[in-house]
């Protein structure tokens, strides 16, 4: 019990701690590839601290939904994060929810974010909400299907069980093809969910292009801080999901200090690697038009489905 609690606390700290760093890392990579020096990788921490200290300005047209949303978003994202194994393959909370719970927890946050976008009554918010709506509605089926394709190999939909089994080379992937397809699908989903190029551009505030930014346009001060933090948490969540599902190397399958140490290091390296990859993608791809996004996500869905088919066909 005590061990479980410590683990949960540890994971919380790791997630909260590492997520801004990932954002910073991606920005740094982009800056480098665009031949800029760019801000330091720890800049996001400073931003958060500053935002927290600023007094938020709340639109007088809004209802209680608007100020409540940042906390709900933060809570739901963090709770979702606790279901995903990070450095240790067995997360104590994993029994509380499997992939479906994960998806719906994220959806809870999205739901309130959309509401908040509408709440202020400005055209931007509504526009952002409406676009977010279409994106999210296309990502989730692909996400569920892709994770399910992985789940089949290990006969479980509990993420930590999947990771644990794969890590211990139980129910090992006899052949990579379903995994590969699912990986690609999940990666695309991750880009979409975390509002990255080519689906969305976190760096823009141009009403033609912005989705997530448009929704949170009215936010300021600590509210914005929480939302930013939640966004980076979501990023961390997806990165660790991808990293641990497809490359559970070095993850701590036992709870000896040594294993945990290795796990932490491996984890950091892995997600940093994925983050760099994302950064590269962000500057090599252009942002797609909103109605082209559907094709991308459709492709993701099909890939995940193919992964499923392949799995059954190869397993007979």
């Amino acid at each position: 019990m005590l061990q479980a609690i410590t683990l949960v606390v540890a994971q919380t700290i790791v997630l909260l701690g590492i997520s801004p760093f990932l954002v910073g890392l991606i920005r740094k990579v982009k800056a480098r590839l665009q031949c800029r020096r760019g801000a330091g990788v720890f800049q996001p921490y400073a931003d958060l601290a500053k935002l927290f200290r600023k007094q938020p300005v709340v639109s007088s047209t809004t209802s209680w939904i608007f100020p409540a949303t940042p906390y709900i978003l933060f809570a739901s994202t963090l709770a979702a994060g606790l279901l995903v194994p990070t450095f240790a393959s067995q997360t104590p909370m994993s029994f509380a929810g499997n992939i479906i719970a994960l998806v719906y927890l994220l959806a809870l946050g999205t739901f309130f974010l959309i509401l908040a976008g509408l709440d202020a009554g400005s055209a931007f918010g509504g526009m952002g909400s409406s676009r977010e709506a279409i994106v999210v509605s296309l990502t989730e089926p692909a996400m569920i299907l892709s994770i399910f394709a992985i789940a089949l190999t290990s006969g479980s939909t509990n993420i930590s069980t999947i990771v644990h089994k794969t890590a211990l080379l139980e129910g090992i992937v006899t052949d990579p093809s379903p995994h590969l397809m699912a990986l690609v699908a999940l990666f695309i989903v991750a880009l979409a969910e975390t509002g990255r190029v080519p689906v969305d551009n976190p760096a823009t505030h141009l009403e033609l292009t912005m989705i997530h930014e448009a929704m949170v346009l009215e936010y300021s001060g600590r509210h914005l801080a929480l939302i930013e933090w939640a966004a980076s948490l979501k990023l961390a969540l997806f990165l660790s999901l991808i990293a641990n599902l497809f490359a559970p190397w070095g993850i701590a399958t036992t709870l000896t200090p040594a294993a945990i140490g290795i796990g932490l290091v491996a984890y950091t390296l892995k997600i940093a690697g994925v983050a760099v990859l994302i950064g590269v993608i962000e500057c090599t791809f252009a942002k797609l038009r909103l109605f082209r996004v559907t094709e991308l996500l459709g492709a993701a869905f099909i890939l995940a489905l193919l992964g499923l088919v392949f799995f059954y066909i190869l397993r007979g």
Partner: protein
Amino acid sequence: MLILLLLLLASYAVGVVLPFCFPRKPQAQGMVGSVCACVASGSGIALGISGLIASEPLTASVASTIPFLAFAVRLDPLASFFVLTISLAGLAASIYAMGYLKEFHGRVSVATLAALTNGFLLSMTLVVIADNGFFFLIAWELMSLVSYFLVVTEHERADVRYAGFFYLIMTHVGTAFVVLIYLILFQSAGSFSFEAFRHPEQSLPEGMRTLVFLAALIGFGTKAGIVPLHVWLPYAHPAAPSHISALMSGVMIKTAIYGMIRVYFDFMGGQFPWWWGFVVLIVGATSALLGVMYALMEHDLKRLLAFHSVENIGIILLGIGAGMIFQTYGLKELAALGLLAGLYHTINHAMFKALLFMGAGSLLYTTHTRNMEEYGGLLKRMPWTGLFFLIGAVSITALPPTNGFVSEWLVFQALFLSAQLPTLFLKLMLPIAAAILALTGVLALVCFAKAFGISFLALPRSSHARHAEEVPIAMRIGMGSLAVCCVGLGLAPMIVVPLLDRITGPLTGVSISDKVLSLDGWALDTVNVEFGSISTPILAAMLIACGLLGLFLAFVFGGRLVKRYYKTWGCGINLSPRMEYTATGFAQPIRQVFRAIYQPTVKLETEFLEESRYFAKRRHFDLLIEPVFEKYLYDPVVNLFMGIADRLSILQAGSLTLYLTYIFVTLVVLLLFVV
């Protein structure tokens, strides 16, 4: 138990009669009717629960002088469960009605309305407890008739009359098929009693069984509103008074689910080919997806909710269909799981759909319009209604930790367990159904984000909304009780599942509650523990904890939690409702992406000033979604009959000679027929 049953019947009956004893006192009429309904449904709740936990089903019967008819009732767990569902919704609705009926004072006869409401609840209860096919049919038809009269409460309006008649015809066609089911069973059993239907030794020939399956699917499906038989639903449910819409959408369509389970799992004894389940699965998936998609395009709040009923019936059928498929292959535990998921979603949908319709009713009550584009900013003006509606919306979109989440999760699991099926085809089909379910779920989320966001948030979009105020306490209690049910059913699966298991146990022959509940009830997992689990209480706790953590962090880093209010930045000009995103605009990307299904047609008429074609005097914008099924499926049939009738009317051309000839020919023909 018998006492409870009698109390229930008696007080409904009294509720039918008593309102008429207070002529010209609508207040009293409504109050009396509602009180009777409350007493009855209260005892109904008790009856349902006791029926679920009782070891022996309660049976009672009154003989009749009509052959083959016996007024026999039997409260086995299945029936009790539906009695419970009906009574829960009924109780809330009748409390709600105490306030809501004011809406009708002076416009329609409140006494009739109250009496019909009691009759409606009574007939629904009789439908599910009837133990005799003939009796069932009587109750079924009564239910249809009474609900029809409730739908046409405001029959001065032509659209209401149309809705009502459409409903009446559809439901009657459905009834014809239901009659067919019982005819086939009657022929083999030589009796209308369910006991005789149930007997395995009178197993029907294969063709007849298939006929029964199809008849049940069409007959009950019409009532349930499966695609493509759903077309009446978005007309009829909104037309009725809102607490009746709540009952129709929340409960009445569930009687059809009851019928299907009764026929497939009870009468057919769970013996059927795999394609039965598969057909049900397909129907479920189609209904779920199309239901939510059409809902997305609706701006009439009640029509939107009605389409969501189609969607949720689809989800229920996904669970049941999966259960049937597993049943075919003897995977009893999974069959039980699927069935259980379907039943769980049944009661959940009853709760949140009733809640949402009541919420819509409250908006109607205070703004007198059903058009979402005229709402806005209502959350500040009616906080309680807003809160309850939000809870309903969160539940129907299956967000944790509400009840919708639990049942949809169970359905997902049931579909994912397809790996254990022998045939590759089904192995693939069930996960695809799951993907469709996922899409449905998200679209529902979008739809309710729209519904809540446009109606309750931002600035009022019309004077109706500007002058809206909170509804009377009775209505709030009615909604509140259901909101509590939604949350409760979500947080306490450890209580609900064992009860449902008492239904699925006898039907599938295996009890799974101990398998589904692990960690002494805290976690809910599928029949094999490894496969995945959730625990809504824990999730709720986590959410709260993380929320507090967020608050704490904000406090730690930010110090005092003060905030400043200022008007929204409107690009320099003052913000007005006309600048807000409309429901139409919000749904535009979806409409764009799925235009293949919607086939939207846009009409833009512009009148220009005669001086210059650069200045428009007025613009008129029309956006129409093609009603595919009505246009290509229903209209042709109607036109066919009309055409036949018109052509035949020359038979009655008014010429005596012609008439004489008919008789003469008939005579000669018959005489030849003898020779």
